[in-house]
């Protein structure tokens, strides 16, 4: 279970079909001073480079950016994986992009981002898997759990499409299964 004294250095949120409105809702209700960097790996159209970060920025209380490769991860920022790139976290805490092969028909792949966060941040990583229509993200979230990080799966009952959270639930038992409003509550409770 979550220990309120435990501090996280990174939050990775992954989602696919139906996740835009969930993420947008979460970002709109976070404390504007929310310090922990949020890494977003959302499935998106490969050929549409703009629009998603702008859409999320409309209601977000925190600045949303699509980072360049090798950009340093800073607090109080949301980093959205650019279209047609995988997004990893480098060991020095910077963003590493890649055009390697699609994974689960996806680039960005949620698994890849979660796995790299698990490797770099271990028990300081918090992974959240939202609504989506394929199994990408399930193995990545499990790797966060395997490295003693904290894991949250969106309650399938609240999902537009529940394939993604159900895939994770078939693979392992996450720390929490929460609705979007409970996820917001949880995240805001992490603030000192």
């Amino acid at each position, binding site marked *: 279970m979550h220990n309120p004294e435990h501090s996280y250095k990174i939050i990775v949120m992954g989602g696919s079909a139906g996740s835009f409105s969930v993420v947008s809702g979460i970002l709109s209700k976070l404390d504007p001073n929310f310090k922990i960097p949020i890494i977003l790996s959302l499935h998106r159209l*490969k*050929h549409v*480079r703009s629009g998603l970060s702008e859409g999320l920025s409309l209601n977000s209380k925190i600045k949303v950016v*699509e*980072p*360049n*490769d*090798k950009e340093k991860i800073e607090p109080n920022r949301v980093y959205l994986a*650019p279209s*047609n*790139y995988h997004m*990893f*976290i*480098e*060991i020095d805490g910077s963003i*590493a*992009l*890649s*055009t*390697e*092969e699609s994974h689960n028909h996806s*680039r960005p792949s949620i698994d*890849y981002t979660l796995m*790299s966060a698990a*490797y770099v941040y271990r028990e300081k990583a918090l992974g959240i898997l939202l609504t989506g229509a394929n199994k990408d993200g399930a193995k990545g979230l499990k790797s966060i759990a395997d490295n003693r990080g904290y894991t949250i799966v969106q309650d399938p009952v609240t999902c537009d499409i529940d394939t993604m959270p159900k895939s994770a639930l078939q693979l392992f038992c996450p720390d929490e299964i929460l609705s979007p409003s409970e996820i917001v509550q949880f995240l805001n409770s992490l603030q000192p």
Partner: protein
Amino acid sequence: MNLGINDIREITSAMSAYTNMDYTEYALSFLKRRLAYIFDQFNIRKVGTFIEALSKNDFREHVIKLMFVENSEMFRDPAFWRSLRDNVLLNLPEGTQNIWVPDEPSGEEIFSLAIILHEMNQAGKYNILCSNPSTSICASIREGRINASHLDVSQTNYKRLENRDRFNEYIKKENGTVLLTENITSQVNCEEFDIIKNNKPDKTGLIIFRNKAIYYNTKKAEKTLTELYNNLLPGGYIAIGVKEKMPLSINDELIVVDKSEKIYQKPQLKRNSHHA
């Protein structure tokens, strides 16, 4: 295969003893997953087995090939190619002999360029050159092979770029292999050399180096991009990936041709205004 940092350092140190295998300045996150991928491909479970196998020429050639990340598709970022066509290809500096795509891993970038130049009736004017240290990659590019699994997205990109459906005119299929037609492959040269160590092609008016430096660490990325930039003719152009940055040390002197597509121009030589 789960490789730790010490494993990676041991492996890259052993690899660097061989020609064209210095990966010591690559990004650690890339090395971790790419080496794990290669270990899986060869069903290798121990670091020592991999290092021992490096003594075999064939194995090294396979490893060099696999360390390159294939281009994801032809005409990736159609807006980039449109900008290149409209802003650059008819404005290459006087004296340009070469257009160069360094470290081309699978041909899609150079073939896209060759098709555009062909459609502009400009192909014969320049040596359309790509380079790669791998013998088998260069052989594949000379043959005009492209990855069949990228074909649909390449075709869609071409349609987005040209607003017409002529892509199939450049493609032929032979025994399950997808090849570019000869009128395109005959324009393309691939030479086997490493971009840092070997002599670079002179009289180069355009260098396309998109999404290659993302696999390097910061130091190597800056060093390589600076060397490529210095290799350009005055007034020449360099293009990098849309999520990459040129080194700060040369950023001030660059002329930005297209900010969002990351196309830059090297300034023309300044004429001496002091006359005797």
